[in-house]
């Protein structure tokens, strides 16, 4: 599909026939963006607990969708450009999911590594497995990473994430 696809009369003449939205349409999109900004600011005065962050991201994503679809012309653009954009979002999702899955569970008991340490301090958590030896035994583990849990010497050293 080419950019000219919507304009069938001239589809094959080689010229650029990009979609041209009307001025009132652009202004309407802008007003929609202002309305959503007002919503998110208003919401910030009401504490919804865990729903705060969900609502903030939903509203921001609505705003971003308006900008990408209409201001950035993705609706009428070559669909391959939309594919690039959507796959970027997908890979950002992977980046978030895998990183947070790591950092959110560093203090958890890990039977494979035989450790249970506090993520924030690297110290043994109450009730955790005994963390034999110390950082000196495995100098490679935890260089510059205060939150890096140190594996027990019996187990293979945990993979370095960087």
């Amino acid at each position, binding site marked *: 599909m*080419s950019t000219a696809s919507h304009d069938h009369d001239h589809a094959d003449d080689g010229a*650029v026939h*990009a979609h041209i939205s009307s001025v009132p349409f*652009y202004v309407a999109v802008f007003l929609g963006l202002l309305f959503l900004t007002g919503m998110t*600011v208003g919401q910030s005065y009401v504490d919804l607990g865990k729903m705060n962050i969900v609502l903030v991201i939903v509203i921001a994503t609505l705003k971003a969708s308006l*900008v990408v679809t209409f*201001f950035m012309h993705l609706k009428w653009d070559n669909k391959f*450009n939309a594919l690039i954009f959507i796959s970027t979002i997908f890979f950002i999702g992977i980046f978030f999911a895998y990183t947070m899955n790591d950092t959110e569970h560093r203090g958890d008991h890990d039977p494979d590594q035989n450790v249970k340490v506090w993520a924030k301090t690297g110290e043994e958590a109450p009730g955790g497995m005994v963390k034999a030896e110390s950082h000196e035994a495995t100098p490679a583990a935890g260089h510059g990473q205060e939150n890096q849990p140190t594996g027990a010497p019996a187990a293979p050293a945990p993979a370095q994430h960087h």
Partner: protein
Amino acid sequence: MSTEAVAHGEGDDHAHDAAHGAGHHGPKWLAHHYDTPIQQFDAAKLGMWVFLAQELLFFSGLFVAYGVYRNWFPEMFKAAAHQLNKEMGATNTVVLLFSSLTAALAVRSAQVGNKKLTGRLILTTIACAFGFLIIKFFEYKHKFEGGLLPGRFFHPHVEHLVQGAPPLPANTGSFFSIYFMMTGVHGVHVLVGIGVLIWVWIRNNRGDFSKEYFTPVDIVALYWHLVDLVWIYLFPLLYLI
């Protein structure tokens, strides 16, 4: 009916093919390695979207850092956010959204060949960009005065802090590391945006653009919308939590 008239008629029908098609005598803005304007246009847009994808992935690293630290220290983030000026942040959001509108309208007026209006709209966009940076400057100034600085430079001055806000934990410096890094890198993008907007304004004045060729205006506007896009997430995540 003369042959001239026939030739003329055909010339009208195939004006585009003749002018833009074969390539050897195309318009001066059609690079020689493209057969048609649409091919050049699509290639330029594709390149820009790949660049924008890279920009998003680049910013996502900062957003992941934000996510990790926010989940580790939710109370600290909440306390620190109280020190940011919601009104200034909201004003800047409106300024950027408006500049995105004027950028989109600039592309539109370039598409319909209104050179004068295109120039004015680009200038409005540039003015908004400067407005954004000026507001940002006063925000940064307040942070510096209050000692609300990144990492180990964090040394809050009680007299400069927001009254009635929750007390700041000792590790609040990491919030301000993230705050300055995210808004700073975004600010650099605003500066680059001003640069490319000025470039496209000069080219517009020079008469480089027409209904047939407005690609640089379109591409620069795409970049500017991306700057807006990043701020759409930065503002609520930093100021409104």
